[in-house]
């Protein structure tokens, strides 16, 4: 066993601090003389904190910027603006050895277990690859043992170390992806839709595994998903994203039982409940139209074009995600309030 990747800190303190992070992808015209004609505002000023040992769920529909946010945190994309620190280290300014040390502390589990594993590498090579980049994490002689240990931790047979990804089922492949993320003993794991490609009966196994690992290893998760039930199940706190911004953030109860942002309320009301007796009692808020293009988001509040509460102020003033009088938690709406009747 090697020492943890970074000095142990007190449980519950802020591990990851993200401040007004912005990512705009330029839209260019012309081939030789590229002219910037606009920008896709994928992430448009996002702030949140992740505490040690907690799971922060990030929900939102496609195009809301949740995956871009994950890629920014992993330094797979360069942010346009903003600051983030991981265990006190500046995430976006780091380079070279410093960046390598930061990356060791934050790993990622990808959505698609079929394309995120190299089909020509054995499972042992896939899980051991992080050690090639970070040789100090595990001495060469004990690597094989460490890899088998990791296979065991995620519930796979350690004897299968020389098998190839195609010999495993979807759920098992996702376990391989999790083992690879655990290899460097990170404190934070970013899970980008880790169970959405899996069948229902397999999904539960992987969710349980992630929760067990969190309890055993004290991991912090950023859990990105579009399935609201899965996010509620696994998360301590939840951030709801819409068109590149966090519109509401709070504890699991605050978001699911006491949501105050109209978008969160609509999203929750639209999620199907597996109970035929609930059919008559449900009151679905039906949103008009589709999500606008992030290349040309509405002025003021991004949600106002689909919102039934929208007034003139929503077009002119951008609502900040702050505490309001009628509000138990930050909600980016001028008219944030509990939904009448539940």
């Amino acid at each position: 066993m090697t020492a943890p990747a970074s000095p142990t800190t007190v449980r519950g303190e802020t591990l990851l601090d993200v401040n007004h992070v912005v990512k705009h992808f330029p839209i260019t015209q012309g081939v030789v003389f590229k002219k910037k004609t606009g920008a896709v505002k994928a992430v448009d000023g996002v702030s949140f904190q992740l505490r040690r040992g907690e799971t922060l769920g990030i929900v939102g529909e496609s195009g809301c910027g949740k995956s871009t946010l994950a890629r920014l945190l992993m330094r797979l994309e360069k942010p346009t603006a903003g600051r983030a620190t991981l265990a006190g280290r500046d995430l976006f300014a780091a380079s070279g050895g410093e960046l390598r040390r930061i990356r060791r502390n934050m790993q990622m589990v990808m959505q698609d277990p079929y394309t995120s594993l190299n089909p020509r590498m054995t499972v042992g090579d896939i899980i051991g690859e992080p050690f090639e980049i970070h040789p100090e994490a595990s001495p060469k002689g004990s690597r094989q043992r460490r890899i088998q240990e990791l296979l065991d931790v995620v519930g796979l047979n350690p004897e299968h170390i020389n098998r190839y990804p195609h010999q495993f089922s979807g759920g098992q492949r996702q376990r391989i992806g999790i083992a690879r993320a655990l290899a460097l003993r990170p404190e934070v794991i970013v899970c980008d839709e880790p169970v959405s490609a899996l069948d229902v009966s397999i999904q539960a196994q992987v969710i349980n595994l992630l929760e067990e690992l969190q309890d055993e290893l004290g991991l912090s998760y950023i859990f990105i998903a579009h399935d609201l039930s899965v996010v509620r199940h696994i998360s301590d706190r939840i951030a709801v994203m819409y068109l590149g911004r966090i519109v509401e953030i709070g504890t699991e109860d605050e978001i699911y039982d006491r949501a105050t942002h109209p978008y969160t309320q609509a999203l929750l009301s639209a999620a199907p409940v597996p109970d035929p007796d609930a059919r008559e009692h449900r009151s679905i808020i039906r949103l008009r139209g589709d999500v606008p293009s992030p290349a040309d988001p509405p002025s003021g509040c991004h949600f106002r074009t689909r919102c039934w509460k929208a007034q003139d102020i929503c077009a002119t003033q951008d609502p900040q995600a702050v505490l309001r009088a009628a509000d138990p938690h930050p909600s980016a709406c001028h008219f944030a309030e509990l939904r009448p009747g539940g």
Partner: protein
Amino acid sequence: MSQHAVRPTPASPTPPDGHLLEVRDLHVEFRTGEGVAKVINGVSYHLDPGETLAVLGESGSGKSVTAQAIMGILDTPPAHISSGEIRYSGQDLLSLAEEQRRQIRGRDIAMIFQDALSALNPVFPVGWQIGETLRQRLGMSRADARRRSVELMDLVQIPGAASRLGDYPHQFSGGMRQRVMIAMALAMEPKVLIADEPTTALDVTVQAQIMDLLADLRRDLNMAMILITHDLGVVADVADRIAVMYAGRIVEHADVRSLYRAPAHPYTKGLLNSIPRLDQRGGKLSTIRGLPPNLMRIPSGCPFHPRCPYVQQVCVDVVPHDLILGDGRTSACHFAQEVRDDRAG
């Protein structure tokens, strides 16, 4: 009704005659280089006018293959229908010549698919694609087909239908594309609409819009619908009856309420217990152990026995028949009554 049935039909929840659509003891196998995969192993279900039947199952359970067999769009080879009947208004579709089936496909039974982007042709405008059926099948003139296409696009609530007729599929959002596909399916006013995971690729707010639309259309046009899905939430919202598939068989068949209240097959029970609930916060999720079977080597006896918490020796030795539980319910489990009455599990 004629007596073509030579094989004994297995227990069916209702009398076998007089259904709009009926699948009887269907067997389909895929003959591949690696061996024979038994994908459908004796599936029977029926559909009456105006009702919604949900066919629920995980990947590889055979839910889509059954639908493709009904539509007559199975790729043969490798697929091969080894036995069974598919009756539409009493007529056995499998005994018809391809030209006769073509007459039924689209006109009587239409289908919409999961991925609207790949189901639509990227190089033709959507108006042209909706109108194609009308020109080909009804011999409509271009102008008439255009007019009718706009009506259909209005029917599926595409805003500004007339102005979007010339747009290509990539210019539509995911939800709008699915509406285009529904408009195409409705062009011939079918009696049966098969929806294969119609909202799986869509966001939850858009999913609610599309499921609403399908429910309204089904009511207004008195269509019967087969909804193929893996989502227990969607089923609870819209279906009248539900057939749960596992390893190419229907393991449980019931009206939606009774099934959710007291599942009578261990697989159904396991599925219902393993989904996290939006309205409940939970501790550990209960899981179904193990993996779905390889269809080239389906376990002996009950195909679910290696994963089943109720397993006994009889499950390994004997294939369970559909046990009739009353109220039109069946369950292919030796211990169906026990499972249904065991509220703890």
